[in-house]
């Protein structure tokens, strides 16, 4: 008699037990922005855990919120190293869905007592962990201008749980220079990694050495005029994005990210079409300024939490802008020679139209990606390829120089070739 079924059943019975697995419950998180004189904490406690720990109501009516506020103020204490209490002021409290299930969300401004260093503090925390031993609270530095930490990388300060309810924080000495340097670096990184901003600018610069006539790009601008045109475009773009950046940082101008990102993709499409056929000849600086306002809104999402207080905010925005301008300048310095040289050759229409096509394709891919809020392979490939654009610029510069020096390669009958 064969054991035709035995191996299956035997193995099945041996493995029939249910393997155990972990099911950690949601925990609290406290994101802190450190300033020179104060700190602001964003407290996120899962609503269910808050209700589990307190039995308090969890809706947004005034009574419920008052209870939550009183609970937090009762369970959180901040002191100086010598034991003097900080002042805690709850600026905002609500039950809200941030990501996933609803949370108790509170913004607490923590102010050090007079003559106390605001960078050394002790937090005593009992909210939820006081009654729920397996809940923990993660404390994270979101920003610290004076320590030069402005990026989005979270620095974990520590976690509290169970009987461990005290967190001692020492952020070191305050330094305005560190914050400014970090803002410059962040601005540089942001624009260098934000291909869409640079592509918009480059597409707008493509026809800058040319003159428009009869609905086509014909003729060349003199070098000096071309340089002046480039300067105007770049300056206008800078003014545009700086304005919204300042507005966003100082006056909390906000737009949801998606429409801003869609508008940026549209701006690239417009500049790509313009590089192919002039649609707003001579008014490029105005368009650059206008779209610069939109691009600034995207930058604003980065600077929103920069620094506490006007001085820190102003310095960090300045630094961030300086960073952006430095990279823009580098890009223009890299692109300019090839544009000017190639625009004097018969190859420029091909280059310009190819550049316009690439920018247009990228704009369309990004547009679809951002409207649908879903990555698409074309956009991903373009992002990948743009990572190598430095090599292209170098090749174009060398190619431009060669073409300009070789006899017979200069532009002669531009209108015919432009069609």
């Amino acid at each position, binding site marked *: *008699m*064969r*054991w*035709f*079924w*035995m*191996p*299956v*059943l*035997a*193995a*099945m*019975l*041996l*493995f*029939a*037990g*249910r*393997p*155990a*697995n*972990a*099911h*950690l*419950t*949601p925990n609290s998180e406290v994101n802190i922005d450190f300033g020179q004189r104060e700190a602001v904490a964003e407290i996120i406690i899962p*609503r*269910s*855990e*808050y*209700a*589990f*720990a307190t*039995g308090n109501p*969890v809706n947004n009516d005034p009574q419920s919120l008052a209870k939550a506020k009183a609970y937090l103020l009762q369970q959180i204490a901040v002191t100086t190293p010598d034991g003097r209490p900080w002042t805690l002021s709850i600026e905002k409290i609500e039950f809200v869905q941030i*990501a*996933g*299930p609803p949370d108790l969300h509170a913004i607490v401004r923590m102010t050090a007592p007079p003559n106390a260093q605001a960078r050394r503090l002790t937090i005593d925390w009992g909210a939820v962990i006081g009654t729920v*031993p*397996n809940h*923990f609270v*993660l404390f994270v530095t979101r920003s610290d201008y004076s320590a030069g930490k402005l990026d989005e*990388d*979270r*620095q*974990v300060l520590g*976690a*509290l*749980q*169970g009987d*461990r309810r005290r967190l001692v924080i020492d952020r070191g000495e305050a330094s305005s220079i560190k914050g400014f340097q970090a803002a410059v670096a962040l601005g540089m990184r942001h624009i260098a990694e934000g291909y869409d901003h640079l592509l918009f600018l480059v597409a707008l610069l493509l026809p800058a050495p040319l003159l428009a006539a009869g609905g086509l790009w014909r003729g060349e601008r003199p070098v000096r005029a071309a340089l002046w045109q480039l300067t105007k475009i770049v300056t206008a773009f800078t003014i545009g994005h700086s304005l919204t950046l300042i507005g966003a940082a100082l006056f909390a101008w906000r737009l949801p990210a998606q429409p801003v990102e869609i508008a940026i993709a549209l701006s690239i499409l417009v500049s790509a079409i313009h590089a192919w056929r002039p649609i707003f000849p001579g008014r490029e600086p105005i368009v650059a300024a206008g779209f610069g306002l939109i691009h600034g809104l995207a930058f604003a999402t980065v600077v929103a939490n920069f620094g506490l207080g006007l001085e820190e905010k102003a310095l960090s925005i300045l630094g961030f802008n300086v960073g952006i301008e430095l990279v823009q300048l580098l890009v223009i310095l890299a692109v300019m020679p090839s544009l000017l040289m190639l625009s004097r050759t018969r190859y420029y229409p091909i280059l310009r139209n190819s550049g316009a096509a690439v920018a247009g394709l990228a704009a369309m891919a990004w547009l679809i990606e951002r409207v649908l809020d879903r990555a698409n392979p074309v956009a991903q490939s373009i992002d990948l390829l743009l990572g190598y654009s430095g090599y292209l610029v170098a090749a174009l510069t060398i190619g431009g120089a060669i073409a300009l020096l070789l006899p017979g390669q200069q532009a002669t009958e531009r209108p015919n070739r432009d069609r």
Partner: protein
Amino acid sequence: MVGVAVAFAILLSIERWQSGTLPIDEGERQPVALAAFGSSYSEVMAAADLAIANAEPQAAAAGDQWLMHENVARAYLDRARLSGNYDDYVAADAAFARAFAVAAPGTGPHFLRAQLDFRLHRLAETERQLAAIDGYAIPPPPEERAEILGMRGDIAFYRGQLEAALQLYEEADRVSPGTATFRRAIHALKTGDFARAESYLDQTEREARSPSHQLRAFIELQRGIIDLVRGDWPSAESWFRKADRTFPGHWLSQAHLIQMWAARGKVKEAEQGYLRVIERSGQPEVMDALAALYRSQGNAAASREWAERSSAIWATRLQQVPEAAYAHALEHELVLGNPATALSLARQNMTARPYGDSATLLGWALLANNRPAEARDVLERLGRTAWRSAQQYVALSQAYAMLGDSDRSDEARDAALTINPRAFDPAAPLIWFGNH
């Protein structure tokens, strides 16, 4: 007629396999084998009850024959496998003790005892029983030798020796093809190769030829678990529903299914479902799932009430069969109890079965005790093996985050999401069964 013939064949196979060359009385044991072919959980359980009722007086009447005690042990073991009731394991254990007390040196129900020891996570004891079979004067038939190899592979698997396990499975299959197919499915699942795991399950089903309702449901449950761990929750739910229909009334399939309702936000239905399953089965795991559901709703009173009830059962089980209870009691402590107790259990669990799931649980327990550096070390070591689960990377991501290493935290998070796109789903804490 065919069913009866198959059942009879199985009966003979089981007995020959389990008792070596000793004569047996088929008639006495028929209900046990037939039980596997019941069409519902209640039928199989009724048959298992009957088998116990038959076996016990016979063992009492012939107390000097170890086979009689083995029959009792088998009957309890069969029922325990289905019911998950630890009292039955204890009763089986006691029956084995009686069997070995009267067995001549070198004889006794080693193979069945090895199965019990394996089920109770006593790996060294399982090995000892298998080694005793090696000393038999008459070597076991190829199928039994293959099964022993398969079990040795399982032991290697639970010791975290994944490559050695695979080699033993290959050896087992060479001796008797098909012995390790299902085991390979589990191996593939735990090394992140879901397609291969599914393919082995297909093969398992083909090799089973005339699978019982219970076996079919079990395979459907496994298919659901594969979908669950790769984040395809709708498909997982569909498989769990199928398993429940194929073998109705089994608390484990139902618990798997009900948790999917909870994850879909059908809280009331899930609550009622869990209550029904608890009423019928009294399983502490289901009580824990219900307590976690209440906790997710902020219902502290109900959550604590059920957590206390399950806690008492886990305490008893830890007394009865500690190795088998460590991991489940640890789950309970992690979410509903005390983190320090969870860590202590995690360490004991890791000692008993140092494989990937235990390492992941240890990682979580260390995190729950605010010891992220140790958790990172444990999980990084696990990452250097072939073990691949979303859970290990979720825990690793959290460990790195707590250590302030955002880049690595993101990398681990991406690794988890690659395996299971729903690894960080806010509803994931409600997935209590099968998400390992």
